[in-house]
């Protein structure tokens, strides 16, 4: 029929999982959140010379509720940890974390009582970007690696099946109902 002729070049088939992952990786919105000198490189990455907009990521959100990527850009002091963790917890799922630079990855040069020896003690880090500070190219490379990771995320077809949470079983909701 003429209809098939019409739609042949306009429809692509895919799996839901691939399509959703493609949508997720194509517009990752980072939280506007810098802690130290790495934040300057992160700002450079967003500016015109390196232009993070090429990857659909130019929308740095000032509210964690609108962001799905946390770039931990810089030294995390022990006093700052509660704030960092709180911002992470305020971000909606699905969410990802990049530890940018030596400090966020391992404490860096600061083997000090005041500095957290790697933010992975508190947050699930997806990508570590080494450097002190990393150049914008390095951060972009880390972001591209994160995109690859998002594309491979088997959130529907993983062996143990999709993660399904029965609202009846969420304690917080039960408390609200009671």
């Amino acid at each position, binding site marked *: 029929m003429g209809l098939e002729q019409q739609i042949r070049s306009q429809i692509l088939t895919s799996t839901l999982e691939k399509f959703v992952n493609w949508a997720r990786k194509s517009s990752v919105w980072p939280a506007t959140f810098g802690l130290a000198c790495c934040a300057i490189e992160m700002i450079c990455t967003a500016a015109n010379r390196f232009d993070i907009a090429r990857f659909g990521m130019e929308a740095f959100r000032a509210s964690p509720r609108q962001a799905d990527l946390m770039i931990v850009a810089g030294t995390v002091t022990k*006093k700052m940890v509660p704030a960092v963790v709180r911002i992470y917890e305020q971000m909606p799922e699905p969410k990802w974390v990049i530890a940018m630079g030596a400090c966020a990855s391992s404490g860096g040069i600061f083997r*000090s*009582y005041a500095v957290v020896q790697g933010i992975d003690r508190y947050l699930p880090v997806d990508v570590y970007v080494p450097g002190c500070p990393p150049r914008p190219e390095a951060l972009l490379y880390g972001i591209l690696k994160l995109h690859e990771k998002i594309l491979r995320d088997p959130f529907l077809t993983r062996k143990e099946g999709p993660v399904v949470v029965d609202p009846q079983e969420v304690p917080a909701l039960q408390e609200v109902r009671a």
Partner: protein
Amino acid sequence: MSVPTAKTAYVEEVVEGLPAGAVTQRESFRDQWAVTVRRDALVEVMEALRDRWGFRYLVDVTAVDFHPRNPRFQVVYHLWCHERNALLRVKTWVEGDPPSVPSMTALWSTANWHERECFDLFGILFDGHPDLRRILLPQSWEGHPLRKDYPTEGPDWDVD
């Protein structure tokens, strides 16, 4: 080598003018004068420096840990006289466990935060301070990190 200037001459005059019984040591390093004052005469000396000699500005309060010597801590005050552009360093040895010195908040209100910092990092108590609690570290912190017997990397840096 160094030429006596008006301001060093003024500080020398101040150092000479302080009561001899209160001052245990006078020293000059690169034209900067420092006096060591007995702890029980500290308030009296500081009051005289502020009111009689014009040191109206308390620049800094800090401490030195001479662990394991006894007395262990020395509190250091930096005073500034705007009229003469003169700096004077006042030191006092702190004894006791926990170590304590009289608070200077009644003389200079800026001493409030300086002394809180000194308490936070060295654990020195300032008697008469209106609000002596930690200022830099979280309130839940244990220990005083600038003490020589506190591990530089913290007690739990390799805990995973």
